């Protein structure tokens, strides 16, 4: 036993390193390889820095847009309050005029229900109430009142509604007022719909519609459209179910989130692009991948589990199939390019006894795959207001070519949840 141990020690000592005995000559090519590695690392660091700058700029941009939106709404609310105050001031003398002069009430009632062709409330020529009430207010009119009076005096003839009701209509025409209504007073094709104006009698609605139709006034809506850019930006996120070779054998879900920008070509068609960071997990059996020889010394594993972090850059064309008031259903077709940021795999090898040996591969490959997947989706979009909208968009991506270091044909499915802002 002792002799055996001694032999073992002697044997082990023979192979134990003694660097003093090593005569290793320096080779220039080793340094050149190290230099290449250092250059690549520097390039990676520069790339990460650039990504950081882009992320910071994106956050800054989103913050600025958020602030401007908030500021805009604050101003609109302020204007609303001012308008309401003015209306209150405007209505008060009229009410007192009605109470003070019994005949005035009859006259006003006659205005609302009378023949539109014979009553001209804004002119104030034929009405005692107007003389006692409205004209008294007009003695010291504010700027807004002057504007209202100008509008009233030039547009109310023939409608037969009072100032408050006309103001309501006028507000609806103005884009700022659209946001205050529950529903847009204009239909999707740009026509005015008085049905969406609350607190208005049906007869008055008809009168307003007829008046606006005669006037051909869709200017308010067109004005709003002109103010909105054709561009919109958005953020989106989706769970990701990916698989290789076919729509089965799914691994635990990954996820994807990103930003996009869209351009509206016409009422129904729009194009968009963006970038999303995706974490993709999948299983693959033998034949589901095409591994290069260097990855496993020429040995093909029996199974593989992958987890890849990639940038998904889609180019999409969207068509609005059905338009409703404030919402729509759309279909999208897209082509996606992938940039593999990191690829991690676990390869399984089964031996003749049925047991499996595994080993892993993890590398920041950085390979890009142009137009590697095609995507189709059908989605529903709902307008939160004139600028913001939310979308839900189930999608399916099918492979056009192989991706990754293991050359897999990657199927993915999920459902985007998006928030868009019309610039």
């Amino acid at each position, binding site marked *: 036993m002792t002799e055996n141990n001694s032999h073992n020690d*002697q044997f082990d000592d*023979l*192979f134990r*390193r003694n660097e003093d005995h*090593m005569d*290793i000559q320096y*080779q220039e090519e080793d340094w050149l390889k190290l230099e290449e*590695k250092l250059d690549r690392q520097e390039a990676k660091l520069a790339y990460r820095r650039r990504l950081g700058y882009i992320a910071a700029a994106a956050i800054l941009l989103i913050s600025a847009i958020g602030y401007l939106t908030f500021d805009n709404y604050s101003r609109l609310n302020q204007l609303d309050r001012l308008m309401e105050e003015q209306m209150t001031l405007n209505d008060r003398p009229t009410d007192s005029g009605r109470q003070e002069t019994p005949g005035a009430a009859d006259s006003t009632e006659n205005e609302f229900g009378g023949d539109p062709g014979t009553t001209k409330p804004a002119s104030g020529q034929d009405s005692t109430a107007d003389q006692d009430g409205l004209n008294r207010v007009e003695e010291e009119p504010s700027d807004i009142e002057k504007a209202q009076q100008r509008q009233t005096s030039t547009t109310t003839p023939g409608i037969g509604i009072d100032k408050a009701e006309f103001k309501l209509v006028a507000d609806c025409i103005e884009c700022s007022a659209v946001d205050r209504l529950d529903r847009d007073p204009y239909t999707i094709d740009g026509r005015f719909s008085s049905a969406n104006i609350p607190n208005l009698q049906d007869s008055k609605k008809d009168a307003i519609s007829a008046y606006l139709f005669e006037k051909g006034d869709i200017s308010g809506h067109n004005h709003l459209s002109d103010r909105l850019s054709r561009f919109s930006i958005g953020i989106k996120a989706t769970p990701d179910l990916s698989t290789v070779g076919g729509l089965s054998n799914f691994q635990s879900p990954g996820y994807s989130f990103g930003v996009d920008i869209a351009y509206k070509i016409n009422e129904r068609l729009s194009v968009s692009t963006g970038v999303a960071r995706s974490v993709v997990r999948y299983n693959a059996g033998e034949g589901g991948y095409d591994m290069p020889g260097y990855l496993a010394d020429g040995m093909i594993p029996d199974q593989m589990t992958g987890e890849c972090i990639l940038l998904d850059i889609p180019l999409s064309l969207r068509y609005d199939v059905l338009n409703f008031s404030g919402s729509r259903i759309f279909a999208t077709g897209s082509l996606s390019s992938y940039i593999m940021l990191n690829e991690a795999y676990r390869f399984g090898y089964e031996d003749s006894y049925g047991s499996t*040996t595994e080993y892993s591969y*993890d590398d920041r490959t950085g390979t890009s795959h142009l137009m590697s997947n095609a995507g189709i989706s059908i989605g529903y979009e709902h307008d939160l207001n004139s600028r913001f909208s939310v979308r839900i968009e189930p999608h399916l991506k099918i492979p056009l070519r192989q991706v990754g270091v293991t050359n897999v044909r990657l199927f993915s499915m999920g459902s985007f949840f998006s928030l868009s802002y019309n610039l």
Partner: protein
Amino acid sequence: MFYAYGMSITLYYADSRDEAAEILNDGFMKVFSNIKSFDDSKPFKPWFRRILINTAIDHYHKHKKHKQAEHFELYENQFSSGEKILSGIAYKEIIAMIQQLSPAYRTVFNLCVVEGYKHKEVAKMLDISVGTSKSNLHKAKQNLQAMLEKNLT
């Protein structure tokens, strides 16, 4: 200075000189990236050696072969016919013998015999069982013994 020292370590874990240089370069990259974590009050060489061994283990995980069948018979005797005495075998020949082992045998042999780790530690480092570690060491020694005998005859 550290080039020769590093190569003397990585040559034991590689199939060839090129692979040893690759492991060494990866080790240098780790040193450059983590130099801030190095404690100045301690000697540099052990820290460097630890990094190189870890890098070699990473390299093993990345490239290891899984079929454990050892084709020792296929190995040709590549040794010089100069020294025939055991103690007089040149280090180049020792390294050549070690490099002819499969990665799994070679890594376990180096960690156990050369670096002095216990089987439990080796099993943890290589993500294998203690039994596999012992078995691989035994087979590595058998193969080296056979190579030695073939070389000395």
